[in-house]
């Protein structure tokens, strides 16, 4: 049942605790939103899931595999920016995802292999509404298009979990709405297990099956850095009749004010 298991994870930088006592069990296919004040350690938690960093204590397992020591193909990732290769065209960004997955030193596709990869890339681009810009460089795209490409590219690597760190944070509200739809569709199609950090509570509740709120449960007024953050609320957004709407309202102000 538990696909991603986080067991009693602590993370400190230079003895300064950022995260403490994080335990979490996520079933396959769940969409987990992560919200919290800025600087409370949401990105740090995502870096741990990505295996970009190792926790000071505790461990994280995906599908009972041993904890990863570096980012690998099990983990797809999209950041707020720089999540595509700016020196490759839109289509080449997708082809590169296949090329990197292949083994071998050069790992560059040529001839019929490349044509086949290009066809698959074009099919994906058509599906995500980027067919008309296949030959453009990312810099020529709008922010929303660039993030759609970044998500499509991450999924082209066929990861087991998808990590999103404020993926829509730099987009205007209208684009953000259409990106919600886009991500929802993708999620319905793939059944991907997703962790998304957002500073937008509404976005978190709208997209997530589950919303985790990160906050510091203990607070030393003389030394604000003395304690780290942990999961203080764990909402199931699909629970019918759950009292979260008014709870949510209250927390919106709470979290925003402390941000």
């Amino acid at each position: 049942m538990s696909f991603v298991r986080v067991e009693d994870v602590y993370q400190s930088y230079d003895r300064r605790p950022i995260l403490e006592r994080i335990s979490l069990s996520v079933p396959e296919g769940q969409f987990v939103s992560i919200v919290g004040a800025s600087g409370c350690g949401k990105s740090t938690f995502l870096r741990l899931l990505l295996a970009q960093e190792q926790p000071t204590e505790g461990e994280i397992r995906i599908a009972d595999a041993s904890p990863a020591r570096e980012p690998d193909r099990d983990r797809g990732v999209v950041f707020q920016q720089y999540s595509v290769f700016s020196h490759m065209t839109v289509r080449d960004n997708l082809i590169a995802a296949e090329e990197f997955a292949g083994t071998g030193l050069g790992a560059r596709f040529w001839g019929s292999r490349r044509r086949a990869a290009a066809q698959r890339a074009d099919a994906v681009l058509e599906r995500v509404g980027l067919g008309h810009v296949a030959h453009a460089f990312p810099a020529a795209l709008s922010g929303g298009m660039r993030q759609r490409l970044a998500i499509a590219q991450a999924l082209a690597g066929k990861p087991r979990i998808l990590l999103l760190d404020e993926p829509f944070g730099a987009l205007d509200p209208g684009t953000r709405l259409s990106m919600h739809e886009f991500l929802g569709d993708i999620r319905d199609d793939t059944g991907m297990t997703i962790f998304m950090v957002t500073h937008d509570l509404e976005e978190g509740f709208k997209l997530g099956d589950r919303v985790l709120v990160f906050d510091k449960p203990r607070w030393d007024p003389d030394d604000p850095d003395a304690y780290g953050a942990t999961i203080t609320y764990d909402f199931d957004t699909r629970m019918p009749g759950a009292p979260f709407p008014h709870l949510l309202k209250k927390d919106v102000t709470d979290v925003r004010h402390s941000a």
Partner: protein
Amino acid sequence: MRMINRRPERSIAIVLAMIPFVAMLIAYAVGSDVRRAANPADKLLPAPSHVVESAGRLATEPDKRSGEVLLWRDTRASLVRLGLGVGLAAAIGLGFGLLIGLLPIARAALAPFIATLSLIPPLAVLPILFIVFGLGEVSKVALIAIGVTPFLIRDLSQRVLEIPQEMILKAQTLGASSWQIMTRVALPQVLPRLIQAVRLSLGPAWLFLIAAEAIAATEGLGYRIFLVRRYLAMDVILPYVAWITFLAFAIDWTLRAVSRKAFRWVEEDRL
């Protein structure tokens, strides 16, 4: 209106840009007139017409002994040295820059060493080069390469470090190996920076070239200038200096044009 907000129109800007050039030419012509009024045989500031005439001769008349036009022969010799030296430095700079920027182990092993090397004044090792490589082409090319390589390594490793971490992480999650990240992400990302860095290093490269040619050479732009200095041949030196300036400008312009054309994605992106 404040001076900081007063912008010249385009046509006025062009005129303004020409003023210093024209002023310099006028100052020269006046100085030359004054000196030649006192001494018609003055060699220090020959008449502008005389300089132009001499430049024409330098560019067209073959040398009596070799049958070659010296200006072209000197230009070819100097450009070959400059190209080899800077090309070698760029290749080494790119290779080590990628290693140092991308691999923490290489960085730990090499960065302090390169930082130390870059403090050595290259001209101070010129005698060593002459002793080791003799007075031929190798020592001149080596001086240029040694002179600009540490800068290129440091600049490029810094540029590699500046590649957004997000991009490197993305490549890892797609399964890329260190080699693939180096060749397919880091290398293309820093190539435009390589051209920028080479453009910056050309000034020092010319300096090292002319210094080496002045000391030991049988042809070359720097060699010629220092040779005719003995005869106070300003009518040769001035056209040569102008020609070197033009070459430097042309190379820089070409590199910039190449960069624009080859790296469209950067032009659209950050530059």
